[in-house]
């Protein structure tokens, strides 16, 4: 099925491209916009991006597959990233991650059976002074404890309805 860009995406792209001295530079920002709208970046969307920037689709895909943040498959309604790196780990980051996984009966890097969340490890979220930290979508949560994680999970369960998830896909590139 061909990718049908939304009106906001068209407008954004039209405005964005001329700001860069070279068209190709706009690729990452366009991919961000698409992923925000769609939740992931399909091959069809990548072909559309390629056409906007006078690139071959493979030149878009090599970008999508290089950067850990871009995804080619859907994820849960909430995207949870728990920092795994040293300062967070020293302060219990792994326990925080286990708690998120247990609350949603999820496996690391996979969408939970209720489709509500995808939990991943992230590498250093640059908030080591308030370790351990995690991001839920755009928001950073600091000084996490198992109790605080429970509260966050309860809130997600209250706000996000459960549903059957799309076929589980490993979201890790590496």
């Amino acid at each position: 099925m061909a990718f049908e860009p939304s009106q906001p995406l068209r407008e954004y792209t039209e405005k964005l491209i001329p700001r860069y001295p070279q068209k190709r530079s706009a690729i990452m920002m366009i991919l961000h916009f698409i992923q925000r709208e769609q939740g992931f970046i399909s091959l069809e969307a990548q072909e559309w991006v390629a056409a906007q920037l006078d690139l071959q689709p493979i030149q878009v895909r090599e970008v999508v597959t290089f950067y850990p943040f871009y995804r080619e498959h859907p994820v849960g309604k909430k995207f949870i990233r728990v920092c795994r790196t040293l300062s967070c780990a020293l302060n219990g980051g792994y326990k925080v991650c286990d708690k998120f996984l247990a609350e949603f009966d999820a496996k690391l890097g996979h969408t939970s059976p209720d489709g509500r969340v995808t939990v991943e490890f992230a590498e250093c979220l640059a908030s080591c002074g308030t370790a351990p930290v995690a991001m839920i979508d755009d928001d950073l949560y600091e000084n996490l404890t198992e109790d605080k994680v429970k509260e966050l999970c309860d809130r997600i369960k209250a706000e996000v309805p459960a549903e059957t998830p799309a076929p589980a896909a490993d979201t890790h590139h590496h």
Partner: protein
Amino acid sequence: MIVAPKRTEIHPKERRMILKHADDPNYDTSIDCYMRHGGYEVLKKALAMKPEEVQDHVMKAGIRGRGGAGFPAGMKWKFLDRKSGKPIYLICNADESEPGTFKDRQIMHKDPHQLVEGMMIAAWATNTAKAFIYIREEMPHGALILEQAIEEARAKGFVGDNIGGSGYSCDLIVHRGAAAYICGEETGLIESLEGKRAYPRIKPPYFPAALGLYMCPTIVNNVETLCHVKHAVDMGGDEYAKLGTPNNSGTRIWSLSGHVQRPGYYELENGKHTYGELIYDIGGGLKPGRSLLAVIPGGSSSKVWRAGDRFKGKNRDGSEYDWGIEDVPLNFDGPAAAGSMSGSGAVIVVDDSVDIVDVLANINAFYAHESCGQCTPCREGSLWMKKITSRMAAGQARVEDVDLLASIGDQIAGRTICAHGEACAWPTQSFVAKFRDKFIERAQRQAASGTGETRLI
């Protein structure tokens, strides 16, 4: 939503210049607030000078790069190839991602206009055609705050066309990364900004000052560095240089994390304090009942110090120094004289509640994940070091792993296009050298859980 909470308790030893207003509860990110506090006056002052004069101030101020290498910013600007006739680009490296570092986050989230003003002064001084802020993806609110600040500054004529009525024009664009650490490496960042995989370029010939973005002369400076430009021009280079200590001028924001009572960001006059003061006095010391195992003095890629280490050598003036970890001056040159580096100013403290093998396994997992994969020694070596230390952490360590790890590290450093080779090799090389007995002891013990219950891998 928690964007970046204010820390209102400021330690009496702090000398706040960059973060002067950031944590004031009444200070916000709007341009009105910034201008009430004297904002954009230094840009006006700079526009009244010749670009060369502004450069002179930065040179005399002796501002050294706050991102990791500590290279003098003024020198970087002087290297710009002006004869090529090509447009000059300025990039702010806001990809803050060296583990342990969280200082630029404070600036961008709490005082974005300071960065915008610093950048426009730098742009004027270098006759930049277009400027970019490359901010890591994991700071989406930071990107929005900066975009809003830029729009406000544009409306007031401080960004964009005919800046401050000077006839000089320069646009400023916020560009977001996508969670790849290697984009903090300046040539990797440039490739990324060109819309490609962030494969670092080989130097020579691709020094950004000559062949940078779109093969044009380019400056890449860190967020904190560009803020210092504003203060150097405001105070005058000579006055600024009096702050701090010789060859280590100004203030510096240290990120303190790990096993300390009061982790956080602390802005201190450069070289006026020691690691001991930061960890024990300002940071509140270790948690009750714990003793020090190690200090990582400048981001997780810097070479580790073991508790009890002594560093001896000769100062430039011929006098001798004999330091413990707590005596090392908090500046650029101190950690270097103690066999490591100040890097991004990220100090990670590790106590005896964890096992040193697990600490290295955690660090190795990071660098293996973040290798761009371009050079074989780094791509393969970082992965092998990760595999070996993960196996050791899982309870299957062998005595010969120590030498095997050292040999892999030795085969990476110096054999790659960019410094990620060193960044991934230095932890392994230094941990194995400093803690050889602990690694061998772990192999003999064959224990899976280290010394405590905190999992690190």
